């Protein structure tokens, strides 16, 4: 079967660094940090109490309160991002064949903010005090379902739960769905809402979050990642259809690699071989070689083992010729299951604007890393044609996508 081509024609975000893609990207280029001490609830006793928080999801101006009160924050942000992405792509969903439209989204932890309150009410008030929407608000496929219902989308749909690699995989498998003709276009990406008392506690107990409140991957002083909340949704569309309707095309999803380490239930393989295979798989499926990549966006999980594993992978793939790299999510937090979607948006914007955000958060590279990005100052203007983006999830999940500007 001759594969079709999958391109990105719309970007929608809800993020700590802004909900407008241009404002968001401008903040990354300027190196503005949106990581701050959590003030939504009393987090003073949490070991890690800094995060990137969304001030306003923007959903209230678009969706009615009767719907919003039934949703956890991760679904609310997903709806807002979906609306932005469809608008950006110029897609009027009511005129589309909605059986040919798909949804593939990812998240890591589901809708805990809603569930926490209902659990409190269950134990303090009893069964009848629990909202009937608890059943449909908390579960990981809720954003997919709510978008499907709101827009009447009835095509190929999935929710992918694979820790921090979730939305990365969603975008990769959305591209495959389009390439194999399962859908004309797919809303792809993910959402995460970890800034609630119980969800944040769970993240804390993973032992992978920074206690000093700084997100500095590959730096010798780093002690973990800082989390954040938000959503990112991309319109992944069949190329010829996009051209026929005169859509603006940000990039083609040229390559996708997905592997597992098979080493440890939580930790990555120190050798980085699994991630390197994902990166090589993405290059191979794109018909490219390492030297074709202009800009690298590492997973940057900011744990010693994670960083050393990833630096080994980068060295295996690129040798001494590592391209310019940036980890702009260090400015607004790692959105866990949504981080890959925000990175993909950033990558698209970098190619579109010809400017790569080179903020990495790393000032003093860890000598134990075979390769370590360092802070080389603020953004440099480059002619960026191809971007490689990595994600790694607990359990040794590795994902890599390669985007190419047309």
């Amino acid at each position, binding site marked *: 079967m001759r594969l079709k081509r999958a391109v990105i024609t719309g970007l929608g975000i809800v993020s700590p660094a802004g909900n407008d893609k241009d404002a968001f990207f401008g903040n990354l280029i300027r190196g503005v940090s949106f990581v701050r001490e959590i003030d939504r609830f009393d987090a003073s006793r949490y070991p890690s109490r800094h995060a990137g928080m969304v001030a306003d999801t923007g959903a209230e101006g678009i969706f*009615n*309160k*009767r719907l919003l*009160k039934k949703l956890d924050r991760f679904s609310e942000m997903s709806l807002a991002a979906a609306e932005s992405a469809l608008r950006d792509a110029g897609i009027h969903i009511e005129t589309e064949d909605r059986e040919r439209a798909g949804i593939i989204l990812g998240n890591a932890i589901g809708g805990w903010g809603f569930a926490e309150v209902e659990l409190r009410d269950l134990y303090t008030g009893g069964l*009848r005090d629990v*909202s*009937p*929407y608890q*059943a*449909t608000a908390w579960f990981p496929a809720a954003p997919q379902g709510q978008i499907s219902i709101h827009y009447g989308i009835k095509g190929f749909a999935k929710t992918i739960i694979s820790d921090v690699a979730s939305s990365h995989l969603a975008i990769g498998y959305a591209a495959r769905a389009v390439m194999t003709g399962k859908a004309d276009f797919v809303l792809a990406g993910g959402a995460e809402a970890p800034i609630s008392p119980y969800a944040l506690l769970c993240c804390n107990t993973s032992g992978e979050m920074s206690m000093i409140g700084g997100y500095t991957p590959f730096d010798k002083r780093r002690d973990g990642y800082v989390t954040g909340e938000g959503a990112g949704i991309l319109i992944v569309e069949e190329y010829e259809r996009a051209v026929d309707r005169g859509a603006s095309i940000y990039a083609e999803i040229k390559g996708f690699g997905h592997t597992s380490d098979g080493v440890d239930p939580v930790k990555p393989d120190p050798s980085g071989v699994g991630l390197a295979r994902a990166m090589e798989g993405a290059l191979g499926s794109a018909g490219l070689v390492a030297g074709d990549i202009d800009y690298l966006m590492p997973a940057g999980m900011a744990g010693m083992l994670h960083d050393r594993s990833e630096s080994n992978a980068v060295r295996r793939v690129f040798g001494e010729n590592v391209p310019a790299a940036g980890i702009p999510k260090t400015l607004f937090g790692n959105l866990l299951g949504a981080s890959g979607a925000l990175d993909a948006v950033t990558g698209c914007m970098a190619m579109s604007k010809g400017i790569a955000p080179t903020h990495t958060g790393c000032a003093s590279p860890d000598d134990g890393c075979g390769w370590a990005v360092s802070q080389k100052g603020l953004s440099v203007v480059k002619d960026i044609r191809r971007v490689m983006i990595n994600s790694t999830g607990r359990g040794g999940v590795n994902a890599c996508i390669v985007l190419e500007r047309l």
Partner: protein
Amino acid sequence: MSIEDRVSRVFVDGIGMEPGEVTPNACLKDDLGIDSTEMVEVVVALEKEFGTKIPDGIIHGGITVRDVVDYFGRSIQ
């Protein structure tokens, strides 16, 4: 506050409907779009508003706002 106003308050403030939607002849399912899950919320909210347990089957999608008002008019008396 009249029973009509109290019922209306449940639909508007509790459920999140627009005041103009909640008219006496509005059917809960066909006009107000209340599905089975939302019906649970409606029944619990009405029970809290009127401080009484509503027997199963009284409030359902096929009735109107006026029917709800009439029910509480009878049950309160």
